[in-house]
């Protein structure tokens, strides 16, 4: 007597079939193509989930998973074939406890944060992917939208002072002058006034000690009162009243990761600014300052072309 197959049988068949497929793919796929990509962060959330999901879609051949930091063993206990992607500083601290461990890409870390956490050295098998807009790119943005600006005013703090040397080098090669001004006490705005007097435009360094919700109002209102545009420090500030900035969003980072993951970890750079980026401008601020509105897409294309032919 024969019975029609029950729904249980269907489920069982599907599961077996899927496992066979997985096995087959593991057997026949080249090892460099099928990678175990493990993302982690101390805190989970919709943003993290959306990113993990998007990376999974971007790399259907790989096994992309997210495990909260608290559920992970020490880094040395992870298989060395895993590609580890860290999404916050707590996970970096966790990763740093072992010199050995799987090859690691660190996202959402700025130059300032890296210096605070790591000092000058980058441990082996760790690649730092910078979250702050590259200084050279920001300078090129200034040159692109404000070609007459020569004196670039830069506020810096103890944490961001180390960026000045590099900034000056880029500026000199572009024929620009960096006018730097320390700002140690954010409750004292005299350094701002001193800087404003001798600058054509301000460039914000992504230093949260200087540029934060508390300082935003005074910084933006007083520079606007002097008709001085601010470039940067990041995309968030543009909405607050900065004129423009370059930035890389999730889709840019997915492209960057996609390319890196295509290669063997041994070829990963120690640190990297994303080559994929966008430009954001504040049209109302531009209009009020008598500046042409920033054509975001065209400016980004010009900057990208400039980076190809430095």
């Amino acid at each position, binding site marked *: 007597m024969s019975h029609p197959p029950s729904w249980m049988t269907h489920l069982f068949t599907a599961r077996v079939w899927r496992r066979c497929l997985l096995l087959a793919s593991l057997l026949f796929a080249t090892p460099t193509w099928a990678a175990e990509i493990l993302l982690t962060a101390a805190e989970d959330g919709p943003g993290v989930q959306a990113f993990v999901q998007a990376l999974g879609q971007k790399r259907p051949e790989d096994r992309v998973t997210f495990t909260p930091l608290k559920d992970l063993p020490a880094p040395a206990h992870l298989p060395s074939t895993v590609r580890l992607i860290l999404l916050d500083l707590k996970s970096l601290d966790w990763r740093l406890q072992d010199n050995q461990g799987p090859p690691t890409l660190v996202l959402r870390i700025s130059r300032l944060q890296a210096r605070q956490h790591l000092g000058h050295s980058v441990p082996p098998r760790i690649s730092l992917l910078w979250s702050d807009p590259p200084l050279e790119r920001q300078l090129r943005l200034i040159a692109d939208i404000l070609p007459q600006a020569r004196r670039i005013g830069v506020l810096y703090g103890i944490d961001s002072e180390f960026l000045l040397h590099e900034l000056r080098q880029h500026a000199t090669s572009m024929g620009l002058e960096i006018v730097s001004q320390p700002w140690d006490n954010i*409750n004292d705005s*005299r350094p701002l006034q001193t800087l404003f007097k001798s600058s054509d435009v301000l460039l914000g360094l992504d230093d949260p000690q200087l540029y934060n919700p508390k300082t*935003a109002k*005074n910084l*933006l209102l007083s520079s606007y009162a002097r008709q001085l545009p601010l470039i940067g420090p990041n995309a*968030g500030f543009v909405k607050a009243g900065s004129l423009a900035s370059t930035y890389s*969003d999730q889709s840019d980072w997915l492209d960057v990761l996609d390319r890196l993951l295509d290669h063997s970890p041994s070829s990963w750079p120690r640190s990297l600014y994303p080559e994929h980026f966008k430009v954001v401008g504040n049209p109302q601020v531009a209009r009020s300052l008598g500046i042409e509105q920033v054509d975001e*897409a065209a400016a980004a294309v010009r900057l990208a072309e400039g980076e*190809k032919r430095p």
Partner: protein
Amino acid sequence: MYLGPPPRSSLVLALLFSGPLLADDLFLDSQPLPQVLTATRLKQSAAAVPGSMTVIDSELIKASGARDITELLRLVPGMMVGYTTGNQAAVNYHGTNASDARRMQVLIDGRSVYRAGLATVDWSDIPVAMEDIERIEVFRGPNTVSYGANALMAVVNILTRSPANSQGTRMKITQGERGINDYYASQGVGWETGNLRLSVSGQQDDGFDSDALGADRRDSRRLNRFSLAVSQTLNQQQSIDWQFNAKEGSNQRPYTYKPVFDGITEGGTNSDVTAKDYAGSLRWNFDFSPEHSLYIQGSAQQWDRRQIWKACDAKVSFSPELTQLWQLNSNYAEKLARHMDNYTSAPPGSAAEQALANQVLDQWKNGGGKDSVCGNIDQSTRESRYDLELQDTLSLTDSLRLVSGMNYRYDRADSDTYFNGTLDDNTWRLFGHLEWRASEHWLLQGGAMFEDTRLSGNSLTPRVAVNYLINPRHGLRAVYSEAIRSPDMFENNVNWSYRVTNLSSPAYGQNSGQYFVKTRGPGNLDKERMRSRELGYNGFFADIGLNVDVKLFYDEITDMISEPLRNNQYIASNANSSRFTGTETQLDWRVSASDRLRLTYAYVDASATNPLDQQQTARNSGSAGWLREWGQGWSSALFYYGDDALNQYRFERVDMRVAKRIALGKANLELAGMLQQRLDNQPTTWADNNYDQRHVLYFSAELEF
């Protein structure tokens, strides 16, 4: 190995499809930043301003070396800066009467300092120190829609430094020739949610040296000021700013009292004024959203002018019969009084006039009426103003913005001499102004103001402007505006007579006497009306750092009240009119990082039915300036100012300031020398305003830490 960027095509493609910022993007800064430069806070760019504007920034203020706001106004094209005495500046835009400047609105941080009763601006008594001024914005042209009635010919908007930008300690002293002796000290402190600035300052100088006859000119001044400004953030959306300012000082006035009757030789020596000004204001700012903000500002001000002088005249001046006769027929009374000795009996007139005249003649000849009697004249005034304003800014769309509001003002003037007691007035005002950016190139702005004043009725004034922006930095504009000036209490409602007290000998049984001359304002004066037409261009050549503004104007004032304020025979009317046409240019050129050139020029053609209203117009006037930073702390500024004829007198002056900045640890010391050299040999505005030397030298030292 470093991985080079990916193939260009894919990059370009990715960039082309760059979308808007994603709200929950893991890689975009999630800091909850407030939107600071909102649609309601952002102003029009220079090329899009619906009119002509001159901004005197802090760099110019400092470089000019000016000790008074009025001297800074020489940097504004078309501004006519003159002096009645050394401590009484008379400033008019384009012109009108040289002795009374009453057609310009003057604001300090949004508070009008136009005197409530006498409708003049006492520039020297404004309780604000030059060192506290951040910048001065001069709107050249009528704009009652934005600034209220009396913004008839121009608006001078003085903006003080925000307390947040005044931190630390500043001390400054200035000393030099002509008795110049000024001081300034300020302290700024900040805390978590607010800032405060406290400053004290003072000024002293001798004014002009000699009058037309070579005698000493009595017009020196001495004053002290106190100022407190506080800004406090209440929360993300609300903040308050409040200020308190006070000033006390004395202004010398020459003794100008002339006895009506011949043969009186006694008299006083001065009619000096003690001036005290107080002002307080409170402004509450509320940002509902980036598209909607509102403020409410309340202010109270008081102007105290204490002026008592000794007056001597013939006893008959206080004759009740002569007073009656004046009230009956002032011409008849004046004719009689001026020629008392020529009459043996009353001149021809009505029976009543002749009867009184005979009595007066009898008093003159037989009753000791010729005897000299002295007493005190008290011309003191106290004026107050309370003002409440509400202004709402609403950004309806990205290209449409509405500014609207209402204002209530209460003015009171208290003077026995001018008003025989107290007089007050209420003013209500409603205003609305719409800015519409029709396209990338066209900008339409218009508005209207309705004003109702208890003493002089209501009025509606419109204003409309079209700007064509060739690009964001270059704009053409066409503006039509109407404006009004309400007659002030003095012009319309004066009840002017002098009571002389403490008489040296009793006159007609009294120790005090009412001087027989009495003047009354008509009480039914209408508002002055201005119609202004303007074509202009404003451009910024970014590659060479040059800013240019040119304007052509045609302004008419009708129903003009142009009779001078005199206490004998003041017959005010709306019978006059004036017309001003011409052109103005303003050029500001940052030649290099260390050089700045600035030029202004105005050609003004004035014609008026009353010749007095053509007095204070220089057909050609202007200024030229060169500011330079020499390095190593040295800086210099050279300015030229010229008027070809202001009240018939030429004015040409070169000012030079040389300064050296010295760093003393964390402190900064600036030493500066200032030389003003007159190039002409003429008096200043009036024949009585002369200096012995054509140059003046003064020095200042300023310490900041």
